[in-house]
């Protein structure tokens, strides 16, 4: 198993009352899976995803990436792991506005010490997601669909084990949504594990496993 989640719980305290946003979630993801998690907004799916990506420490339970417990790691180690093995596509405008498209894509490469051809890989990815002509532009000059492609290319820069996407098709029109989902499916076919959360039923047909999140509980169909 690539990713193993056991008894994952996250509790929030609001107005003196404690309530669970995610309750005892269990999930195993194998290499090459395309997992979709669907749920209404407020169902806890973003909280779950953030815990999986290593941004939000759980109240209890564990997340293991190939056996290594994410939240037992120090900041430096978890940063390195996030950089090398997790490709995260944030919700909304997730590009760095001060850097060009090309620099946005190759940035993850430079966040830890490694050797290789960053520019070559970035050019390859630009071509792969179909935005080569936009390399020198700034994110503010791009459309929503183009921007999403930049984020996908950036998440793929360091050849991660798993691509995690938080509602990658929110605020996109139907046509662009289809294109983005097809792109993710193609990436999955090439061997990258994909885990995404969505609240659009249309996108479910692209995955091979579908889970539902409702009131903090995760169930597989």
């Amino acid at each position: 198993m690539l990713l193993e989640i056991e008894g994952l719980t996250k509790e929030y305290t609001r107005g003196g009352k404690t309530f669970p946003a995610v309750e005892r979630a269990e999930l195993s993801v194998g290499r090459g899976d395309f997992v979709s998690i669907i749920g209404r907004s407020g169902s806890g799916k973003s909280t779950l995803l953030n815990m999986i990506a290593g941004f939000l420490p759980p109240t209890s339970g564990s997340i293991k990436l190939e056996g290594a417990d994410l939240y037992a790691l120090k900041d430096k180690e978890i940063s390195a792991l996030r950089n090398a093995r997790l490709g995260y596509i944030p919700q909304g405008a997730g590009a760095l506005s001060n850097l060009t498209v090309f620099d946005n894509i190759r940035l993850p490469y430079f966040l830890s010490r490694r050797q290789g051809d960053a520019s070559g890989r970035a050019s390859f990815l630009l071509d792969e997601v179909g935005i080569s002509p936009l390399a020198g532009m700034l994110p503010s000059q791009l459309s929503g669909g183009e921007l999403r492609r930049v984020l996908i290319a950036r998440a793929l820069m360091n050849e991660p084990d798993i691509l995690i996407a938080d509602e990658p098709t929110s605020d996109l029109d139907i046509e662009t949504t289809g294109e983005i989902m097809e792109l993710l499916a193609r990436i999955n076919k090439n061997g990258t594990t994909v885990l995404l959360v969505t609240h659009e039923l249309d996108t479910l047909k692209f995955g091979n496993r579908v889970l539902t999140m409702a009131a903090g509980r995760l169930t597989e169909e």
Partner: protein
Amino acid sequence: MKNRLLSGIAVAVFGLLLALVPVCIFPACAKVIETAAGGTVPMKCFWSGQAEIGVGLLILCGGVLLIVFKSPLTRIGVSVMTALAGVLGLLVPTLLIGGCEMSTMACRMTTFPAAVVLSILTVAACAANAHYLWRQNKNLPVKTDGR
């Protein structure tokens, strides 16, 4: 476009100031000395000032040309030549012609320092511009951002 205008205007202003220094900003010493014999002889510093006017006008033209020409290669050429004119502006009061013997004379106190400072600024601006254009130009053929 913005850089072209900016560099051109900066150089043109330096040139204009340099040309104006001996005329009205910091004139050199009175232009004629009376010898004991009663004759009149113009002093070296006057001729230095005249030469600086010429150099200043040349630099002014360089600045205007930097705005007029669009081709980066032409502008590199103009920048280099204008930088060399700046070097000339530096050499006139220090080596080529010179001025009065005493450092408290108007020419050595104000005219020459002003000319030297403006010449240095001209050389720096033109060299920086040439360097910038050269690097831009080197990148041009593979540049894909369409600017």
